[in-house]
């Protein structure tokens, strides 16, 4: 997963079923991502009632937000690599 242009990743999860896939993704893939990008802040935050989203921040504070509601672990991985290859 190339996340070279990304300055910070924020994953917001809710406590319900809607973020089950995203949670699975974190459990399975977090170690791998951290290994590839040890200095990239990859914030995982949970809050009941929050809309599960994936936010990537690029240079100059530009943010891209992808909703994760109901997505499977593989879908989340795809969304993240899409963001990684996107240029702001």
């Amino acid at each position, binding site marked *: 997963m190339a996340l070279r242009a990304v300055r910070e990743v924020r994953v917001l999860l809710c406590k319900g079923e809607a973020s089950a896939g995203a949670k699975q993704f974190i459990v399975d893939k977090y*170690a791998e991502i*951290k290994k590839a990008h040890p200095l990239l802040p990859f914030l*995982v*935050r949970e809050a009941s*009632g929050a809309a599960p989203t994936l936010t990537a921040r690029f240079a100059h*504070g530009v943010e891209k937000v992808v909703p994760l509601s109901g997505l499977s672990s593989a879908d989340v991985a795809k969304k993240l690599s899409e963001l990684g290859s996107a240029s702001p």
Partner: protein
Amino acid sequence: MLAALQARAAATARPGRVSLQLLHKGARGVRSSDARASSAVQPAQPSQPAAVSAVVQLDEAGFAVLPKELPSMRGVDFKQELDPRYAETIEVIIDGHPVQVQKGSSLIQACEQVGIQVPRFCYHERLSVAGNCRMCLVEIEKAPKPVAACAMPAAPGMKVFTNSPIVKKAREGVMEFLLANHPLDCPICDQGGECDLQDQSLFFGSDRGRTTESRRGVEDKNLGPLVKTVMTRCIHCTRCVRFATEVAGVDELGTVGRGNAMEIGTYVERMLDSEISGNIVDLCPVGALTSKPYAFTARPWELRSVESIDVLDGYGSNIRVDTRGGEVMRILPRLNEDINEEWISDKTRFAYDGLKRQRLDTPLIRPDPEMPLQPATWKDALTLVAQKFKATPGARIGAFAGPLADVESMLALKDLCNAFDSEAIHCDVPAGPLADCRAAYTLGSTIAGVEEADAVLLLSTDLKREAPLLNARLRRRVYHDGVRVASVGPRVPLTYEYEHLGDSVSQLLELANGTHPFCKVLAGAQRPLVLVGTGAYERTDARGVAWAVQKLVTSVPALIQDGWLGFGTVQPTAAAVGALDLGLTPLASSAAAGVGASDGAIAEPLGLVYLLGYDSIDLDRLSPDAFVVYQGHHGDVGAETADVVLPGSAYTEKVGTYANMEGRAQRTARAVSPPGEARDDWKILRAISELAGKPLPYAGVDGIRERLAAVAPQLADGTESIHAVSPDIAKAMLAVRASDKFDFDTKTPFASCIDNFYMTDAISRASTTMASCTKAFAK
């Protein structure tokens, strides 16, 4: 005519009568002035019995004749629902009404459960029962004498009378004896207006004395710079003694002598060395113990109270700020069972005088590096800062948020710096395990949950100084349930016994590798708890220590399980959790403060340094041509070094969100207005962004709250709840370690992150009260 007179008399009698009922409620912790305040909004009780005659009637003995029915009986709904948790109830008959009360309660509690407040002085629900004031006497059918309701367990079928003539006579007798030796100095007593004795003497006191003996004289005791004593006023309820021994864990305070010669004191003169000693001021029902700094400054009826949150440590105590004429007069605790119960630490209570000294109240600009700061207009100051933002390349902009920063201003700071392509936005927290995972920097067990732990390991923390009230909870757990506590760190008194395993990294490594004997204790526990002080990460080998901590935490399965997160960091500042939640990067190590390079990044000398209430900047490591902006409320170290000073607001002057060490977001309230031209912090940053040509996409309070909800929803909802981390996520994320090879410094011992409890931030450093505490108590 007569009827009209009587009706008027009844009307004037009402407010006072209603307030008795409320007043006893007040005696439970919240001061009676609350009760006083609420009695104003309380509608007068509708069903008044026969009107009280305007003239007070006296009986043969010379006592005032009071109505038979005491106010405490009126307006009670005996059919109120019982808490389902207390399923086991017994029936007692209180004042002729059969009621269900929780099994095992004392009569005073039973009465309380059905809404009758029995007057009391010595009984306090958080302390052991002493039964020595006798104010709570009630009558029990077939009992030969009145009994103390606080010390008498309720038994099934017991017939209790709380307002019979015998009870009234007994309480009047008790009151008369109490007053026989109590000085008549209410006009010069600080407790006046919120004194339990004063209030209750209105109902049970006689209007004349019968004693001819002279009153008892007692020497005042010196309990240190916080608690003022006037010991002739003491009624020997021993609440202060019980608090000191049972909650605070200091055994110095006690009673000497007996009978008329009894005194409260320390025997050998000694100051009360406890971080929570100020609570005895609240507990003392009379004016024997009052606040020294508050002495003779205000009367309770002049004060305006605002409910707020304390930010001087990471505990998030709930407080009440009392103000008069735009000045903070005192700070009192507010009940919150999940956090501070009804106590607060001495710093929280007494550091408020720091809010009035050393304040920055106007923008300042240093026209030339050699010259002193000069007052300037907001426009000039902000324009200058905006220009610097535009002129400095992003990689050379660095921002630092201090220990008192609120979440809104840190969010604005981060957004502003990000917009100018800077990534060096730091908070005043040493880098521990990854800030990616919320479980790595909060108190996962929650504060109240600490009392569920059955084996505790402390690492590099002096819990008594870093979180005195958390320590008091742990102490309760140790004393009541004999929980084993071990510590790797400074050998300090914690007010209970614990095993000191050592103070070097080698012990931590043994624990992490599972070779230490204490690992067995942790592994055998249902709910083990590991509490790490941030002092563990203020070391040169912080990364290795973090690695070892993560290894330890992930190696004990019971530490992270469903419904229990037994790994906690004791954050010493109110800003810490909020800052890490927002993604401000922790300082790589305290030595790096001033360089602005987070771990691994190339250190480029900073051209623009923005300090948001940050005072621990390392000047030697700052490049001499750096332009320093200080935004804050106190003229501390940071402001001295600055080229531009922007005056912000302190926590009593703004509405700001703060997350405490368990991750609970709470909001402060604006009790007074900021001095001079000082402004709300996040608005200052918003104004800079506007002038610098990259306006932040929010303008009003609602806007920034919305943005906060998008960035960190766990802080935004204002429901004051904790959003716990799921165990599987915590487990997966904490298992990740950057590498397995570290150099450890086995020579440097683990130390606490605090060396002086009384001075930890700009406000407490400016406080004279805290200065005298430092002189009296700090080593």
